[in-house]
């Protein structure tokens, strides 16, 4: 639809003001991280810090419980990377099976997978905790990482949708040339679904980076804490008066998320539009 000039200006004015309102809280958070702790709430209405306090970042980085944010970021990254590799690869394997192979019970398992997609996680929270406790996995990253290696329904669904757009003639040609199913998957399909795997990887990154419940349940030593848990510790400590440091580390925790968002927008938007992934 093309708009007339006056309508066009009004449209942009209205939309831009809306967008600015949406972003205001985030900008407020970032700006507060440069303010003096004592003045953050006195000057809450003004966005520009005066003076600019950079030491909030140094103070905040000292962390909590004797560990710095270097440790927390490292812990988060280990969990995110191991989980993402597992979730994306295993989901691709399963998706190929559902999208391209014929076998007994396929419809049954596909239905199960779609139901699992809608199953509230709270239902299995307690027994999974007991299971991991019995396995002696408490206080390790295993309960958070290992389940990812068994395929994630959201990603399986996303990848099935994508594999279906690849012409089946390709499979037939490869099979005639004597290519087995595993070679077909690994050498031909996998490279072609790379864009969808990138989408899955980005969402896996978000969910694991922001995850709080997993670490709260399974990680009890400050040396193992993730960034999310460290922030929570900041908030909980009773002696807290260093708001600036807390806002500074909150900002730090958002930097990777926002950076990935701007770098991979296209994948994110397509992933949500086609599969309805929650963001």
């Amino acid at each position, binding site marked *: 639809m*093309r708009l007339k000039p006056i309508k066009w200006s009004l449209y*942009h004015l*209205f*939309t831009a003001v*809306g*967008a*600015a309102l*949406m*972003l205001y*809280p*985030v900008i*407020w958070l970032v700006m507060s991280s440069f303010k003096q702790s004592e003045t953050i*709430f006195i000057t*809450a209405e003004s966005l520009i810090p005066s003076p600019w306090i950079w030491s909030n970042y140094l103070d905040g980085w000292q962390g909590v419980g004797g560990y710095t944010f270097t440790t927390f970021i490292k812990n988060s990254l280990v969990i995110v990377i191991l989980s993402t590799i597992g979730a994306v690869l*295993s989901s691709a*394997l*399963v998706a190929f*099976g559902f999208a391209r*192979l*014929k*076998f*007994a019970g396929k419809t049954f*398992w596909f239905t199960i*997978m779609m139901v699992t997609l*809608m*199953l*509230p996680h*709270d*239902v*299995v*929270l*307690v*027994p*999974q905790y007991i*299971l991991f406790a019995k396995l002696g996995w408490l206080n390790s990253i295993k309960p958070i990482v290992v389940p990812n*290696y*068994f*395929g994630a*329904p959201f990603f399986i669904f996303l990848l099935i949708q994508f594999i279906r757009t690849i012409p089946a003639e390709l499979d037939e040609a490869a099979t005639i040339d004597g290519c087995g*199913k595993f070679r077909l*998957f690994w050498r031909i399909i996998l490279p072609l679904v790379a864009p969808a795997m990138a989408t899955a990887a980005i969402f896996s990154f978000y969910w694991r980076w*922001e995850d*709080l*419940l997993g670490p709260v349940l399974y990680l009890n030593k400050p040396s193992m804490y993730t960034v*999310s848990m460290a*922030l929570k510790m*900041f*908030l909980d400590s009773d002696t807290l008066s260093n*708001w600036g440091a807390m806002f500074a580390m909150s*900002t730090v*925790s*958002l930097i990777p*998320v926002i950076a990935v*968002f701007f770098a991979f927008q296209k994948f*994110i938007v397509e992933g*949500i*539009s086609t599969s*309805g*992934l*929650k963001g």
Partner: protein
Amino acid sequence: MKIAWKNHLTGYIFIGPFVLGFLIFTLVPMFASLYLSFTNYDLFSPPKWVGLDNYVKMFTGDPKYWKSLKVTFLYVVGGVPLRLLFALLIAVLLNTASRAIGFYRTMFYLPSIIGGSVAVSIMWRNLFGDEGVVNLLLQALGLDAVRWFGNPLAALWMLIFLSVWQFGSSMLIFLAGLKNIPGSYYEAASVDGANAFSRFFRITLPMLSPVILFNAIMQTIGAFMTFVPAYIISKGEGGPLDGTLLYSLYLFRQGFVFSNMGYASAMAWVMLIIIAVLTAILFKTSKFWVHYESKGDS
């Protein structure tokens, strides 16, 4: 058609990870959870069978349970429609041929991508402080400041505002749906003299109704399981006066703070039933308002 057993085997090797994972991490835990819901279990001594006691206590002897159920319903009923409404309005607004759309879409979506993080909950907590930005704004408008943390209903609204602020993923799904409506429908309607309002109500809404149903179901399930914001904003306790004691938070507290694993399991099963019923109601009523285009060949 007969398929060689080897092909079946190959199929199961590929979907094997999911099948195994489903059995180990979902099916067995679900049965375990059902069994535990009839026991008292604190993780250290063996589960003690108590029959329906947990369920009876839940509904007749635990005012906090009713409070958390009520708070959660208010949160879902207050938050989900508002969130969908904003998502739809912004999607319609952004469904024009302007080069700035990508930029706007990014700005409106960004809050949702950072939405689940602890940082955002901490930020929200501070925006709504007694001397926070929201109260300054209210006072600038000549209204009274609200003690967001002193009043259970205000605290719940604070959580609802946070969820409404994060309408981005629904908006993107709506946008994709809007792009699928053929432009010729609107042109024909314009020729017939339909104004923007009747075009919206006669074409956009009916054509979009399957997407609205999908978003409504996913958002309802998601809202019912909200945990992190309530946990962070109330420092894990669900206050003030249990005003932000969302169902998931209370379940977490019963299971992992008070070590009532049996009670928490019973809560989980009631939650599953409630979500199943809500989803079924949405599906059932959908035949009155969801419009499916009859597609000839697909």
